[in-house]
């Protein structure tokens, strides 16, 4: 019986590709599905593109392929990756340059058509409201500040690119799980309205899209995380899939990490809203019928996916300029570490007020006390801290104010409370982006999808 093995590539822009080597060498995979994008990543790539129009793609796709392609070609492994980001053609050029320099050969397909920034007025003219899908707000309020707008494409263009013989499929914004569903639909010839098989592929793609989070990484727990073996050599997950969509979820032999009922179900619900209607471009998945059977030895059998018809709209993620963040930080040692941070926050607040700066919002956090746990930090420890760092941030429309804010802090070193540390330079203003999730009729996007295949 034919099975197809898809291995996880990266789970975010900046992730390590070293574990992918084990999946190719001894994981028996035919495909690597590599996810370089998140909502935040598009904001980062947009800043790159503003500085350099030839940038705007996830740069780590280039060294990853440069290092892994000889091994992948030897084992007949194909790559599907969304490292194209906001500029898939730029990514293709960078990869092609590297491949030519190294003498590598590959058939690279580029999938485009997801970018809608240049089409916003056209789409609104065609009757698309593009209102904020959570708040219902009108897009007019942020239209002029919009910096990117990309629809989440589905798996069909990926499967089409593979049918044209591509070894590497390079996309922009596609649904993360489409990187896995595309190869499965292509290999098994799944019909695009076979909703249960689509749902199975979506489930597996979702479990693979965060790399190590699907094999024991970031196992959110008290104590249990410490039982995960050999983090240093954590293997990325692999789905071994049958034609009916059932699968064995596992990882390469001889690697660290843990594939179990507990680690897999954490990833299943990760960044999911309604689990009974998990929307993707290709199908709407009900997670309530899935069955996970933990067979031990890092093997979990997954069956029972059920799907409903794909939506008539595609989700769009757009970003708009939303002010500047100023940041300042200073650390204090015992005695009264927390009290000195608190006093410093009061001093800085006084200075900001006296300067009359237009500040829209501000945040005060105490690193070592509540910067991660917020209001659920336990105050019982507050006054006994060995050391504590104050971190203050402001949001302002004025970049100069954001820059000046950070410069208030060093002065505290000689003129504030005693026993300071962390004077490691001044943080410059950081541009903030608001995210605008919205919906668009799929046919208006899909008519513009282009698949270009090129021999390198």
């Amino acid at each position, binding site marked *: 019986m034919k099975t197809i093995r898809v291995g996880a590539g990266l789970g975010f822009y900046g992730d390590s590709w070293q574990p992918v080597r084990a999946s190719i060498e001894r994981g028996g995979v035919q495909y690597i599905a590599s996810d370089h994008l998140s909502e*935040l990543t598009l904001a980062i790539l947009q800043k790159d593109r503003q500085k350099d129009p030839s940038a705007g793609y996830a740069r780590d796709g280039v060294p990853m392929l440069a290092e892994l392609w000889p091994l992948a070609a030897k084992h007949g492994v194909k790559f599907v990756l969304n490292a194209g980001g906001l500029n898939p053609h730029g990514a293709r050029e960078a990869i092609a340059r590297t491949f030519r320099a190294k003498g590598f050969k590959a058939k690279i397909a580029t999938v485009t058509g997801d970018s809608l920034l240049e089409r916003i007025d056209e789409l609104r003219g065609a009757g698309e409201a593009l209102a904020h899908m959570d708040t219902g707000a009108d897009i007019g309020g942020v239209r002029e500040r919009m910096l990117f707008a990309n629809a989440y494409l589905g798996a069909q263009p990926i499967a089409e690119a593979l049918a044209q013989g591509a070894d590497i499929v390079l996309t922009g914004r596609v649904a993360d799980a489409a990187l896995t569903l595309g190869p499965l639909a292509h290999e098994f010839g799944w019909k695009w309205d076979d909703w249960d098989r689509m749902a199975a592929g979506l489930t597996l793609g979702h479990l693979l899209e965060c790399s190590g989070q699907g094999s024991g990484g970031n196992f959110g727990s*008290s104590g249990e995380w410490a039982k995960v073996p050999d983090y240093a050599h954590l293997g990325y997950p692999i789905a071994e899939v049958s034609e009916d969509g059932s699968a064995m979820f596992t990882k390469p032999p001889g690697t660290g990490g843990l594939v179990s009922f507990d680690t897999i179900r954490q990833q299943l619900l990760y960044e999911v809203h309604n689990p009974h209607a998990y929307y993707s471009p290709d199908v709407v998945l009900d997670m309530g019928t*899935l069955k996970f059977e933990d067979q031990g030895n890092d093997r979990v059998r997954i069956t029972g996916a059920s799907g409903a018809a794909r939506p008539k709209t595609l989700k769009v993620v757009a970003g708009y300029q939303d002010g500047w963040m100023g940041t300042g930080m200073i650390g204090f040692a015992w005695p009264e570490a927390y009290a000195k941070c608190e006093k410093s926050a009061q001093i800085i607040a006084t200075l900001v007020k006296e300067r009359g700066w237009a500040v829209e919002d501000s945040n005060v956090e105490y690193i070592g006390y509540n910067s991660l*746990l*917020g209001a659920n930090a336990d105050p019982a420890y507050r006054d006994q801290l060995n050391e504590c760092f104050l971190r203050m941030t402001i949001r302002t429309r004025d970049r100069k104010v954001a820059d000046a804010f950070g410069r208030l802090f060093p002065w505290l070193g000689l003129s504030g409370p005693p026993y300071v540390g962390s004077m490691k330079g001044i943080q410059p203003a950081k541009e903030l982006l608001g995210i605008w999730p919205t919906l668009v009729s799929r046919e208006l996007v899909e008519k513009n999808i282009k698949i270009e295949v090129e021999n390198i």
Partner: protein
Amino acid sequence: MKTALWKIAHARSGDKADRADIGLFAFDAPTYQVLKREVTKERLAAHFAGFNTGPVELWPLDNILALKIVLNGALQGGAARSLRMDNLGKNVAAQLLRMEIETPEDLPRLKGK
């Protein structure tokens, strides 16, 4: 008896725009029944008061002994505009595990401790 969730469950959280979402998982079936009864939208709203500005949504998943929790309005407008250290809401799950609920004393994870 009062029991903190971290003793009987595990959890992971993530972000989508201004929404923080949490998966809360019982280690065993008896604990799942207790979570379903005790971890209510009202309790969650109170636990995250001052952090989450929007409504709380909650779905039980009997097949994986889990509760899916969504806090609509917990991330200062979203990761790319948040002023927080934890702009991605990765620690919202840790915040949840500090919540205390009423439990029987004989839950599997509480025995022999």
